[in-house]
């Protein structure tokens, strides 16, 4: 995990903790069946993965990342389904912004992979925008092949590294 995304998550958690709006801690209307979400308001720890309005929930239950084919930035049907859910969450949680991180696997030259990561991040940004998310809430960065999550040198790892990750941040602090 990158320094910046760690920092954003901490900032986001602090921002959430400081938020005094009690409605945020209720079960999200229409947010049915989120894994790990407590059934009653009493069982939800604000900001935790059980809170459907938390970045942790977004990360773990919605799914914060989509994957790409080799040297491609086209969104697969699976990727679009994940992004539909991301867009839905962002529409409900308007206090948040998102930075899309684009990544590549190690099979490619360094600078090309930076540009390829930008392509992937932008494919996600454009899709979220098409689903109604205001472009002003979205930004992107490419890490190229600099931040792999899986370290082996075969397709089982490469397929996990060719990704775009939606990092949720608090608009109150980044805007």
């Amino acid at each position, binding site marked *: 995990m990158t320094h910046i995304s760690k920092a954003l998550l901490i900032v986001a958690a602090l921002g959430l903790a400081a938020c005094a709006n009690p409605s945020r801690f209720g079960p999200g209307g229409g947010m049915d069946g989120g894994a790990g979400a407590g059934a009653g308001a009493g069982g939800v720890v604000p900001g935790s993965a059980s809170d459907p309005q938390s970045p942790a929930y977004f990360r773990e239950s919605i799914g914060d990342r989509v994957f790409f084919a080799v040297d491609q930035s086209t969104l697969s049907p699976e990727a679009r389904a994940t992004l539909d859910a991301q867009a839905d969450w962002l529409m409900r949680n308007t206090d948040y912004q998102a930075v899309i991180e684009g990544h590549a696997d190690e099979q490619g030259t*360094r*600078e090309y992979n930076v*540009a390829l990561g*930008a*392509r992937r991040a932008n494919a996600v940004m454009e899709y979220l925008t098409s689903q109604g998310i205001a472009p002003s809430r979205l930004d992107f960065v490419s890490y190229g092949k*600099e931040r792999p999550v899986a*370290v082996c040198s075969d397709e089982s790892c490469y397929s996990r590294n060719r990704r775009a990750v939606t990092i949720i941040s608090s608009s109150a602090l980044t805007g």
Partner: protein
Amino acid sequence: MTPTFQNGEILPAGANAAVLTGVEPMYAGRERGEHWSGRMVRYLVRSVTAFLVGLAMLTGMAAAQDGPLRIEITEGVVEPLPFALPAFVAQGAEAQQYAEQITQVISQDLTGTGLFREIPRSSHISQISSFGSPVQFSDWRAINAQALITGEVSSDGSGRVVVKFRIWDVFAGQELGQGLQFSAGTDGLRRLAHKVADQVYTRITGEDPYFDSRVVFVSETGPKDNRSKRLAIMDYDGANVRYLTDGNAIVLAPRFSPTGDRVLYTSYESGSPSIRVLSVGDGGSRNLQVGQGMTFSPRFSPNGQTVVYSQSEGSNTDIFAMDIATGQSRRLTSTPSIETAPSFSPDGSRIVFESDRSGTQQLYVMPASGGEAQRISFGQGRYGTPVWSPRGDMIAFTKQNAGRFHIGVMRTDGSEERLLTASFLDEGPTWAPNGRVIMFSRETQGAQGSSSLYSVDISGRNLQRVRTPSGGSDPSWGPLQ
């Protein structure tokens, strides 16, 4: 840090010199072997690779029948030239350790090229106990030393070290070129040695020197999924590593300025890749203000006044040029594809870059002002990271084909492509200042994979790892100091 050199002071002709050369212009460091007159021994060079013939013709280095003592670097197979390097004579006790160290570095420089082979001192018949004494050529012929290097090291006690040396063509029985002396502070001993070795190299190969040069690179530590990267600078041989940044932000692809005074690089310090310029002297760095969005892949123009770089706007990456003095940028490419890794021709008139406008990464050449680009790579696979040779005659590149990576060279019109290396992941070539050696990064396969620096001759010979304290990537070879 940089020692002040008293550079290239010519010594009177050696005791055995057949021809007194008299007063000649100050040695310029660029004289070629063929300029020396007199009967010289032509050292046996064997070429077994027909594909190199074209290259030899291209560079005008086809072996002459009656040349001087010399090696042709462009040949495919070279029998290393045996040389004798008796320990330089120390003048005074203090100079003893300096003499030993300087002699050792000279030996490492020469043998490290793969073009020279040192005859062990234990085989020497003659001992050189005085720099001024006549050379007993028969003793050196008897052990088949083609070249003999003699020298003297003195110290004036105030931290100033002087090295004098002569190079002898043993079988011709005469001095090869003129004796020279260099001086430096005690922190410049390795540079003194590199200067001497450069003279030996250049007089025997006819090529420009390169040992007294530095490389800026990315020092890497830690596992693949948590790697720390720092800018570092070192001598060409991996000695004297000095770190220029801490490991807090990812840094990529540093590029030396033509004079070696500045380094351009890409940093994630702001959270998003952007171009910074660092002053090598004081280590200070600043952000180059080059527009909105991600900027990366910077490189200096030959006059050091312009930076070419890539900028990503949305999913599109194009090449721009910025005048450093005014901060004004202009767009050089405008296609919806990825254009990156620009590199100027040494005369500044053209730029080679990579683009996937055809569907895969390929190499293109365009005028330095932008405009229509000519594709030059047409082989199998993907081509990236092109770098124009300082001699202007070739372009080095990374090629990816059939699951392997290669460092290769081609002529500037794309002809005569030759692959120099093959591995799981080789990338990012950079040229030695004389255009005869290429350094690059090699990443090993697997979860424990790490990156190291390697060098290879443009003939594909003498692949060597460059020893650095930790991992290394993205080397950029600076000018001769």
